[in-house]
């Protein structure tokens, strides 16, 4: 059993107390002395030429300090993209400039055109109404396939077309895959859309820029998942501010889910404007504004073909995807449909030949980037849906078809360039069958039938690659930065510890879970350890939190730094105990000379490290603080098997989730309670994607679902209790904790389970239905049943 408060304990979260009492410190809770407010006047047209901007009346209005337009930023860098994809012909992707404020053209509804800085937000808003915009509406490019037509209007006039890249992977396999598909006994084909989503963390984005004239230092408070990345991108590529003059702070952040990874124009604006007007400048995004300015997620249109032999063995897989980039390239956008998607197309299966083609397309919509899972949910969804259809077509049980194609030997090198280190897909499948009580399904289906409802069951597997990422590898794949993580462990004189970590916590509970690891290693109480994160002036470097990387990468850095601490502390203890270093053992916070009862406590050693009377000064520097950088050797590969049971009301098409079960393999677990919570949250979002959520644009590029009235967020009565289990554990072999990451699994594994279940329910009712596109709203399901 785990030591109390150490690795494996469901320690209650210490951060909860401040959140439960209203004492959280979110960015919007911060106000600077003398701060001014900015309001962004955004384009209401999806595509428009900016012929003129008349701010003269607005400038005279009460409280207006200054009005900025795109002209003010022509000398300033644009919002940079952090990943360059090379297309299948060896050419770099097309990469348009993304100005801080629109210049020349506005390219999506929500593109900021003017920024009004005023004494109060109300005054800024009032002044915005007095600005006269002379916009000439241009035809909007919305549908991806039409965007690629020769005669399509262009989102960026300076580019050749609306095609960002045409990516093929693995290009050398292309012909072999074509051939295998042509000659196969059976090919199952499915066309589907992975619906466009909006991440919607409950805290909207906020930025406060400050400038100190005495030191020339800029400070930016921002709702970011990775303040150091913002410092790097904004400092180096946008505003030209060296790191030692730029401090970025992300205090308590109210959820991220990917959309708070990216560097946004508003952050750069507030930083720039604070110096220009010599006042702190604060921006608080309204929810309506968030809908048209936070990067969206997903939005893939895919055709997938799975070739099998007569026994159902997978022979080849071919996919053809159009991926929406929106109007500009957001920070990680190009990597999502490529390296975070194509490399996962093997799934849990030993398909020998795979070819993935992705055309990334510019449209007059909000930029699209990573949202919880990022690329991996798109991969899992199409694969698990096509397998379900294949099982039906081949007359093989869907679970058996999966099992017979499972990868069972590890390490396993997939044909899509990654190597799975560990996994046991049969184990998670067995566990899922048990916790989902599949044996009891028929009985429950009969009960549903008695109530006039159609019951269905959907199962699926998933795999993801997280613990992002091996720097060298991602560099070869186009990442413009390595993706290691760092940690500094500072032991204070009396033995308490501050850990400076580059990982950022915005709901994941690092303040509780990370100390559990250190407490376990040192044998001290976790309450002795505090986590410091989210401030570039306190934490030397960090790449932040996304891709379920915090514990696998950030935690590993912390372990390495703690190992260095232990090594040094042992040297000090050896000196104090007049023993040889090799004989010193650390257990339960005591350093003992092996085989004797001579020992010295943790606190005595730490005190000696700082204020010694008796210290080996010739051999050892005083002090006890160590930093480690950790670069993972590989991705980690969490996997699992999910089951969803639904009831469909044949009268209305309404789908109700009756049961949801998830059996995951996350490797080792530090805090099971937190892991469960992460899975619950992911499943909630996955059910949202499957049943409720969709960002809808009309042909003119207006976002129809631009508020919570129209964009259906999952609510408490849309979801059931979930049954989750992570007792199947095949520890990661290449990080010191053996952990794999759990943040995205639920969102990756759940959408196919839901759709498989609904299709199953309709099929059992005698309907010849093979697919319904998400979200499975009552009207879509009802219509499918009528056709």
């Amino acid at each position, binding site marked *: 059993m785990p030591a109390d408060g150490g690795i494996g304990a469901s320690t209650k979260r210490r951060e909860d107390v401040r959140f439960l009492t209203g004492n959280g410190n979110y960015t919007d*809770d911060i106000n600077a002395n003398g701060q001014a407010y900015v309001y962004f006047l955004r384009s209401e047209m999806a595509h428009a030429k900016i012929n003129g901007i008349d701010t003269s009346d607005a400038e005279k209005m009460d409280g207006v300090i200054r009005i900025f337009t795109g002209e003010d930023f022509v000398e300033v860098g644009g919002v940079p993209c952090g990943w360059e994809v090379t297309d299948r012909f060896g050419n770099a992707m097309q990469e348009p400039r993304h100005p801080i404020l629109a210049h020349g053209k506005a390219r999506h509804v929500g593109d900021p055109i003017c920024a009004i800085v005023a004494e109060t937000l109300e005054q800024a808003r009032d002044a915005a109404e007095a600005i006269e915009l002379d916009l000439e509406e241009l035809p909007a490019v919305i549908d991806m396939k039409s965007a690629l037509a020769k005669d399509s209007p262009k989102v960026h006039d300076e580019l050749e077309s609306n095609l960002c890249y045409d990516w093929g992977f693995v290009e050398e396999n292309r012909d072999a895959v074509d051939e295998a598909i042509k000659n196969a006994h059976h090919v199952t084909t499915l066309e589907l859309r992975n619906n466009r989503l909006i991440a919607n*963390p409950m805290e909207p984005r906020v930025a406060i820029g400050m400038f100190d004239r005495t030191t020339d230092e800029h400070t930016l408070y921002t709702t970011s998942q990775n303040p150091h990345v913002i410092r790097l991108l904004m400092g180096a590529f946008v505003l030209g501010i060296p790191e030692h003059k730029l401090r970025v702070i992300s205090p308590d952040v109210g959820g991220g889910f990917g959309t708070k990874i990216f560097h946004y124009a508003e952050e750069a604006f507030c930083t720039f404007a604070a110096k220009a007007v010599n006042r702190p400048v604060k921006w608080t995004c309204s929810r309506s504004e968030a809908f048209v300015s936070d990067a969206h997620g997903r939005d893939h249109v895919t055709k997938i073909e799975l070739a099998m032999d007569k026994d159902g063995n997978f022979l080849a897989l071919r996919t053809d995807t159009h991926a929406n980039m929106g109007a500009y390239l957001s920070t990680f956008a190009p990597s999502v449909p490529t390296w975070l998607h194509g490399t996962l197309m093997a799934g849990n299966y030993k398909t020998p030949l795979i070819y993935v083609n992705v055309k990334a397309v510019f449209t007059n919509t909000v930029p699209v980037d990573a949202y919880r899972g990022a690329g991996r949910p798109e991969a899992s969804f199409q694969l698990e849906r096509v397998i379900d259809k294949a099982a039906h077509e081949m007359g093989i049980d869907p679970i058996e078809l999966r099992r017979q194609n499972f990868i069972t030997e590890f390490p396993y090198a997939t044909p899509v360039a990654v190597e799975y280190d560990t996994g046991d897909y049969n184990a998670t499948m067995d566990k899922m069958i048990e916790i989902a009580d599949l044996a009891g399904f028929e009985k429950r289906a009969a009960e549903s039938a008695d109530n006039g409802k159609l019951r269905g069951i959907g199962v699926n597997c998933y795999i993801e690659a997280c613990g992002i990422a091996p720097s060298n590898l991602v560099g070869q794949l186009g990442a413009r930065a390595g993706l290691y993580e760092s940690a500094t462990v500072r032991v204070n004189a009396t033995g308490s510890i501050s850990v400076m970590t580059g990982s950022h916590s915005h709901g994941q509970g690092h303040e509780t879970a990370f100390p559990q690891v250190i407490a376990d290693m040192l044998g001290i109480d976790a309450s002795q350890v505090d986590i410091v994160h989210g401030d570039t002036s306190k934490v030397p470097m960090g790449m932040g939190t996304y891709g379920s990387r915090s514990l696998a990468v950030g935690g590993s850095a912390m372990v390495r730094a703690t190992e260095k601490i232990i090594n040094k502390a042992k040297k000090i203890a050896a000196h104090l105990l007049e023993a040889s270093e090799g004989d010193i053992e650390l257990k339960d916070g005591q350093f003992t000379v092996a085989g004797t009862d001579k020992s010295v406590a943790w606190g005595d050693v730490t005190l000696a490290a700082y204020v010694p009377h008796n210290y080996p000064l010739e051999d050892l520097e005083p002090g006890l603080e160590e930093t480690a950088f950790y670069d993972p050797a590989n991705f980690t590969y969490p996997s699992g098997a999910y089951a969803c049971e639904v009831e469909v009301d044949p009268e209305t098409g309404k789908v109700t989730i009756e049961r949801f079960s998830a059996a995951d393999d996350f490797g080792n677990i530090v805090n099971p309670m937190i892991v469960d919570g992460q899975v619950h949250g992911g499943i909630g979002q996955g059910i949202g994607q499957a049943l409720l959520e969709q960002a809808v644009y009309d042909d003119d590029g207006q976002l129809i679902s631009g508020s919570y009235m129209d964009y259906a967020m999952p*609510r*408490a009565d849309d979801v059931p209790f*979930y049954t989750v289990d992570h007792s199947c554990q095949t520890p990661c072999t290449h990080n010191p904790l053996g952990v794999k990451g759990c943040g995205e699994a639920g969102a990756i594994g759940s959408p196919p389970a839901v759709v498989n279940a609904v299709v199953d329910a309709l099929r059992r009712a005698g309907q010849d239905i093979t697919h319904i596109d998400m979200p499975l709203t009552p009207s879509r399901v009802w219509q499918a049943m009528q056709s």
Partner: protein
Amino acid sequence: MTQVTMTVNGKAVSGEAEGRTLLSQFLRDGLGLTGTHVGCDTSQCGACSVHVNGKLVKSCTMFAIEADGAEVSTVEGEADEDGTLSTIQQAFQEHHGLQCGFCTPGMVMATKSLLAENPKPTEAEIRAYLSGNICRCTGYHNIVKAIMAASGQDVSAIAAE
């Protein structure tokens, strides 16, 4: 600007408000009670929930001047003076009913009024009652569980925590 006076968490307070100042704004910017959060601008998310004269209210749907003379309670008034968490707060911590914490003040205030109206709500009653409060982090599982626990119900049979 109008002078507005109200009792917030048992203390008489006053401040200036424009006619268009929302109660949520007044609490946050006027009184510095930033526990009340603003998550939307269409009265849909419930992050701003407070009690006004004992009733659950989304404080973004009410002007500050409408609350003149009212008794308002916010999440800051939930714990005891000495910091001891209320039963509801304890249950949320015990059952991991919060992650990022942004929806949490609204959830706590909604729970308080739910349990005042219905001391032993069923799962379905809890889910229905919370339909005005969005949480993006938890998938609601542990929120519902925490509320059942706060109402004294045995939650040990509810899967996984």
